[in-house]
């Protein structure tokens, strides 16, 4: 708990002191932190419509490479990688761009071009931006440290379903279920300001008014080869994020009788939405 508080304070302080700039003009990103992009996206995926990718803050070039593979054969996403170290202890990593040739001065200014990326064709992958906390060794949701974009649209809850042993029961206004242990699948998206289907910043699940799960899309990290997210309630990403983009909570114990399941979602700007379903548990 104390660790969580320190991280939130550290990131909050960093965001106040160093409000990073988005790397492109126009929409800040296409896919947000936590989107399913061959797994849990640990940064944001963006489209450099004008081809220019800019430094998000003053920093120093730590690593710059244009090539499809590292010397050991490991592939480089999008064929280019640029890493900047910032005074705040944060690192910004840009993948899928062609870095500018390094000059004698390895220092860059916020907003200065650091490379180019091709505009993204429909269905193709864009360039990636990761914000990495070198002290905590974890990826931080970029929206927490970047300039805030105007956003008055709440996220959408497109649906929810209970699932057990491969059997899926979509939640409608009144749903009948047998008692026992169920997983809840939630389909919730935030299309603003990304313009695409990114996950909301906060997701809560309540059963009969009692909070049963809460995740805050603040950070992602790896330990012993496994990948986790959410500082407050660490969750292994593999069992949480489904390939179709839905997220899974549970198992939730449902007792016989009437129950109300409520899902609330919020974006980073604080816009909220809530949906509830009445269950008849047999």
């Amino acid at each position: 708990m104390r660790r969580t508080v320190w991280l939130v304070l550290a990131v909050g302080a960093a965001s106040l002191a160093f409000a990073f700039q988005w790397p492109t003009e126009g929409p800040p990103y296409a896919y947000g932190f936590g989107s399913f992009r061959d797994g849990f996206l640990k940064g944001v995926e963006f489209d450099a419509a004008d081809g220019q990718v800019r430094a998000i803050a003053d920093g120093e070039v730590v690593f710059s490479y244009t090539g499809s593979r590292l010397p050991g054969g490991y592939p480089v996403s999008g064929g280019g990688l640029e890493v900047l170290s910032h005074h705040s202890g944060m690192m910004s990593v840009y993948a899928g761009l062609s870095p500018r040739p390094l000059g004698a001065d390895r220092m860059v200014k916020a907003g200065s071009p650091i490379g180019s990326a091709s505009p993204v064709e429909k269905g193709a992958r864009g360039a990636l931006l990761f914000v990495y906390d070198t002290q905590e060794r974890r990826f931080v949701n970029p929206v927490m440290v970047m300039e805030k974009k105007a956003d008055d649209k709440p996220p959408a809850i497109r649906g929810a379903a209970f699932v057990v042993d491969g059997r899926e029961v979509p939640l409608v206004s009144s749903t009948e279920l047998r008692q026992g242990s169920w997983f809840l699948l939630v389909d919730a998206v935030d299309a603003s300001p990304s313009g695409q289907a990114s996950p909301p910043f906060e997701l809560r699940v309540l059963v009969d008014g009692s909070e049963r799960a809460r995740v805050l899309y603040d950070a992602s990290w790896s330990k012993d080869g496994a990948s986790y997210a959410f500082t407050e309630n660490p969750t292994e990403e593999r069992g949480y994020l489904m390939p179709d983009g839905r997220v899974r909570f549970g198992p939730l114990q449902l007792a016989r009788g009437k129950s109300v399941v409520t899902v609330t979602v919020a974006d980073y700007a604080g816009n909220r939405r809530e949906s509830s379903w009445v269950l008849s548990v047999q």
Partner: protein
Amino acid sequence: MDDQSRRGTTITILATGLSLVAYFFALAEPLSTELTAMPRWVVPLASGQGTASAGTRIPFSAGDLFGYFAEDGSVFFMNSAPGGAAVADGAYATLADARLYRLGKPEAVGLAGLPFFDSGALYSGLADGTGLNAYDADGALKWTYRFPCLLSATAGSPGLWVGGTVDGWLEGVDADGKRAFSFSPGGSRISVILGLAVSPSGRWIAAISGLDRQRLVILGRGGTDFRVASHRYLDSDYRGPTPVSFLDDEGYALYLRPDGIGVWSVDGRTDDLLPVKADGFTVSMDEGTGVAYLVARKGDESELVAFKPPARVLGRIALPRNLEYLRMSGSTLYFFADKRLARVDFWQE
């Protein structure tokens, strides 16, 4: 000429004579050994070739072209695919569509991520650059390992794969996908891993790390863990992938430095230099003769340097420009340039 200058000349002649005696008897090391390069064959390569051949199949990949050839220059199989293929002894994987083709088996197997081979084992990288998938010989996923940060250098040996991250950590993964060790060289103003090599036996790891100042760090296996065996600070200021490699006898690590190729013994007792200008290099050793062959690249030019470790140069020859493929086996060099594959053998007379 007066007496004083005559005495000086005599002393000079005597000193020179004594030096020569000392050289031949005290420093009895032969001068340059005659190294001969013998071209064996040149064959044009094109997609669609395929003639059965006896002998060892040697994997080949250059640009979109890939396949197998034999030591005698006969082409076993040659094909092309957009983006090319990763090729190993018994299988190849096309890169654009991530499909595995096993020699002798007609069906292809789909893979997740971007495939590559390391020490004969099949892996793929996760699209975000933070993870590794490992497969068995039939392309079935064995395990997935997620690293804490993006990878900037990687290397492997049978049973050990090591990832170096942009935040300056080394993390080793064993054959079962379990973490073998984790280590941060540190010691620099900014941590980053720029170069990485694992010795053939997996006993030694070499890393180029950090900015201001950069370091070469050698880790040695001690029980189940790795610990620092030797290190040295470097004068370089590289900001991208930096080649480092072990000689096959595992006694020395070679690394790129601004004034040539450094030769560093794993115990830290030898710090020598091969006077070779390069952006990158590959090195191989003929353990039968004890001669090492280094192919140094600078821009589109390459040269082969034969040397006795640690750094006694035996000879050097320029190689064709724009080399696209290179493989050393003992004292035999195979290379591909201008759509032609060639073999050259070296021997000492």
